[in-house]
């Protein structure tokens, strides 16, 4: 085998189907970090993300010998992990079918999606940027969170995300635009909540926090 780490996913899978266990180890080495990152962003909990990642790889190991390799492997791998993550989310609380739908027709760009007012310039320079980004993703409802996580942490193309989610590509693009509008809204909100710590007293902070919670629940309810 020439330069196995440069081999495509599909060729590694083909070698594994031929009985080469080392090819599966190379797939694990290639994917365990991005898959864990995706699971963490979707679930927001380290142990759950680790369990889901492990379970996904065990399922991949079982299913790969019979997998058709004439389609790209990456969306298939992410789809398996996404399903494990949804199982975890369902166990946490009852999830109705409506939870997994965005609630609005996906072929219509709603008012939230056209909120294009820019974020404050100083946002990118904040020391707590990583925390803000993490909280903004976590505040999204699952249908939006998974699109954002696949795009920003998995670096998947819209066509691949559509394959993972089993949705038309246009629906994915629309959902992503809507999610971005929500992220912009939440980031502005989180930044405003953190900013008055030095300038305002506790009552002002509490008012801002309450406003943020209301908007966060609004986001969630909109997705139902």
């Amino acid at each position, binding site marked *: 085998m020439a330069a196995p780490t440069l081999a495509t996913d599909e060729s590694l899978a083909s070698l594994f189907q031929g009985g080469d*266990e080392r090819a*599966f*180890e190379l797939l*694990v*080495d290639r994917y*365990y*970090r*991005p898959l*864990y*990152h995706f699971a*963490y*962003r979707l679930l927001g909990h*380290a142990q759950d*993300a*680790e369990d889901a*990642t*492990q379970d996904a*790889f*065990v399922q991949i*190991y*079982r299913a790969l010998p019979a997998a058709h390799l004439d389609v790209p492997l990456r969306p298939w791998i992410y789809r398996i992990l996404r399903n494990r993550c949804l199982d975890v989310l369902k166990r946490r609380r009852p999830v109705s079918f409506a939870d997994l739908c965005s609630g609005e027709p*996906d*072929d*219509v*760009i709603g008012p939230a999606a056209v909120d*294009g007012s*820019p*974020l404050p310039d100083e*946002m*990118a320079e904040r020391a707590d*940027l*990583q925390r803000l*980004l993490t909280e903004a993703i976590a505040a999204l409802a699952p249908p939006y969170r998974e699109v*954002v996580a696949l795009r*920003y*942490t998995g670096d998947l193309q*819209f066509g691949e995300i559509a394959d993972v989610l089993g949705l038309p590509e*246009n629906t994915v*693009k*629309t959902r992503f*635009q809507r999610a*971005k509008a929500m*992220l*912009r809204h939440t*980031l502005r909100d989180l930044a405003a909540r953190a900013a008055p710590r030095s300038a305002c007293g506790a009552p002002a902070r509490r008012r801002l926090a309450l406003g943020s919670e209301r908007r966060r629940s609004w986001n969630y309810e909109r997705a139902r």
Partner: protein
Amino acid sequence: MSERDDRRLAAEPPDDVDRLFARLEPIAPPAALASRILARTSGRARVRWGLWVRLAVGAGLVAALLAAVSGYLTGQ
């Protein structure tokens, strides 16, 4: 979504949200995650091999028993 909307979404350059989330740092997995995954999957491979070995040994024993019985009967 109209075709025009679709073309607009596909052609849009990265905006401020995209640029901000491009700075999102990956969450490092636990150090032992890869080895745990491989332990779980190679454990399954060992189980599979173990099953085949047991089946082969069993088949060999049955064949030896049949040969012994048929040899005994032929000798009589």
